């Protein structure tokens, strides 16, 4: 039968149209805006100039916040990886009938608004929050511990938002590993730890890297946890974009910062694709 090359495109056309109109076109607008000028009244003046980009690199203020964002993102990735691998491995190994229920627990946070989840930390970590209240009540401390409005609180807020992404990516990767491989290794004299280190861990790396990439990219673009849980000095690049666009109506400069962040993330994703293959993410997600 003659192949119809247009058929896949026809099937894909609704998705492609949506992606084009809701992603590509807005990004193009942002890029165009980044070359415009802003009038003192807040009006935008069409232009083609690189002043907004020059302003970003004119002194260390904006680059430092960008670097801080990357540092916080890397810390979040590392902690999510440590905290995510263990439950993912547990789901892979367990034969418990409760496994589906436990998997639902991982997904449960998605059922609650991200803002509500972030705000709830105030009642847990605050000076009069649950932890300080209990510690003070039982005389373990005399003044409340400063657990809120600092970088630790921001990272905690990011972890509770992003951990499910890491767990699910790793789990899907682990789930694709044939368990008989480790059994064979153990029958040949490997210890359980050696079998994990030599077989399971390397084979799960695609899921690990996919999870790391997703967590990293999402952290770089988020602004709610720093806004709600952060203190002075915990600003991330997305907060700056928010302020430029919303606070000062400086859409051109806000767009320029967005484009710089976008380029940075594109470079990272490109590098990842070069060495790991972006299809690992799709493979992991499609197996889910």
């Amino acid at each position: 039968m003659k192949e119809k090359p247009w058929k896949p495109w026809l099937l894909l056309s609704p998705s492609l149209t949506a992606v084009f109109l809701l992603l590509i076109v807005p990004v193009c607008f942002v890029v165009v805006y980044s070359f415009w000028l802003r009038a003192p009244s807040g009006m935008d003046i069409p232009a083609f100039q690189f002043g907004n980009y020059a302003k970003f690199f004119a002194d260390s203020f904006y680059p430092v916040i960008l670097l801080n964002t990357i540092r916080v993102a890397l810390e979040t990735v590392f902690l999510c990886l440590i905290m995510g691998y263990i439950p993912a491995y547990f789901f892979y190994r367990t034969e418990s009938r409760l496994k589906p229920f436990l998997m639902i627990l991982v997904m449960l946070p998605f059922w609650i608004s991200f803002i509500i989840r972030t705000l709830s930390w105030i009642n847990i970590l605050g000076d009069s929050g649950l932890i300080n209240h209990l510690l003070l009540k039982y005389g373990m401390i005399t003044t409340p511990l400063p657990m809120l409005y600092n970088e630790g609180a921001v990272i905690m807020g990011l972890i509770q938002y992003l951990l499910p992404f890491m767990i699910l990516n790793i789990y899907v990767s682990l789930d694709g590993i044939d368990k008989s491989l480790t059994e064979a290794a153990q029958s040949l004299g490997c210890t359980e730890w050696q079998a994990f280190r030599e077989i399971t861990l390397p084979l799960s790396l695609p899921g690990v890297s996919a999870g790391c990439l997703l967590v990293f990219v999402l952290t770089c673009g988020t602004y709610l946890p720093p806004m709600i849980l952060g203190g002075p000095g915990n600003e991330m690049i997305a907060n700056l974009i928010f302020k430029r666009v919303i606070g000062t109506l400086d859409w051109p400069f806000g767009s320029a910062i967005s484009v710089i962040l976008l380029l940075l993330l594109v470079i990272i994703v490109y590098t990842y694709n070069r060495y790991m293959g972006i299809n690992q993410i799709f493979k992991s997600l499609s197996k889910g």
Partner: protein
Amino acid sequence: MGEDLKKRLDDVYENYRNGNITRRDFVKFAGIAGAALGLAGGPFGLINKAFASKSITCHSWGGTTSEALRKFAFDPFTKATGIEVIDAAFTGMDAFLTQVKASYPPGGEFNIAHLSAVYDYARYTDLGFGVVLDESKIPNLKNVMTKMTDTLRGITNGTLSAVPYDLGQTGIAYNTNDISKEKAEELGASLLYDKSLKGKLGSWGGDFRTNMWYAALHTGQSPNNITDVDAVWDALTEQRSMMKKYWASGSELMSLLANGEISATVAWSGRVAALQDQGHPIGYLAPDGTYSWMEYMYVLKGTDLEVAQKLLNFMLAPEASIAVAQGQKYPPALDPTKVEMPEDVKKLPAFDPTGKLNGYLFADPAYWNKHQLEWAEKWDRIMAGA
């Protein structure tokens, strides 16, 4: 709208034929117009038309403010006229201005906004989002304090695009368990710079003006004419090292004060009054030069003026205006020498029994808007610790 669009298309076509615009621009405009007509004239247009004369949208601050407006102004208005008032809340004035700016045509989707401070009246007007109200259709405007209407008229060449509705202050709130009234009154604006409060101070991160205003008072300068701006930045940099949290919304402000997270902060008078009503140990300090502001109902371009004027007149009726004031804890814009005020309204912070507002210091819109971009960025840098 169809007629208006047709006229614009005719104009553009004529310009194209005369060679005043390029073919590309003509096609671009025709495309946009077609899309707009499709949305406005198709099924969406039918819905629009069905509701156009029967509803009007009013954006306000949410929480107790919107609740008071809904209960004492909008619902009774709907009951009396059959016109529905869609009660919407914005996350902040800057965010709302962004939405208005992003709408097409600018301002078209939005009707009335409960805005604060005169500099925003100027900003919305400068951006072309204003209208000219027919004051003969708003007879209750005669009860409003003259100084408030005159201030707005000064910006819009003697006309009004808004009616003043209430007034308030950004004073200083302090926890009376941590700070005595005597100490607060002695220090005045400098309470916000008291080193003994390190780690227990808060401020509004979203507004450079408020922070500069109190830094100016702290450094002995007039907020509307800062002569030594470096001293202001130095004071704010020093204050940052003592800051626990730059809050972003009224509800966050109330949460921080109510939970004892912070001991002192700049604060909106109505929010403090609400906390005091709830029994929290919060004091309110209005030092010399306290930042006063007026709030007004701004009518945006594209709104059905007949409906808007009818609603504004209803809202300014003493019974509605006073009830809203009691609900939201901000004194009304009505002149107390013309309209008798109940005792609880007289006790609200920022209430002026003379109706003349002498001694109230408002932000000079020309001065603050002139420096807005430069100072907002500098403020961001200070907050971030640069």
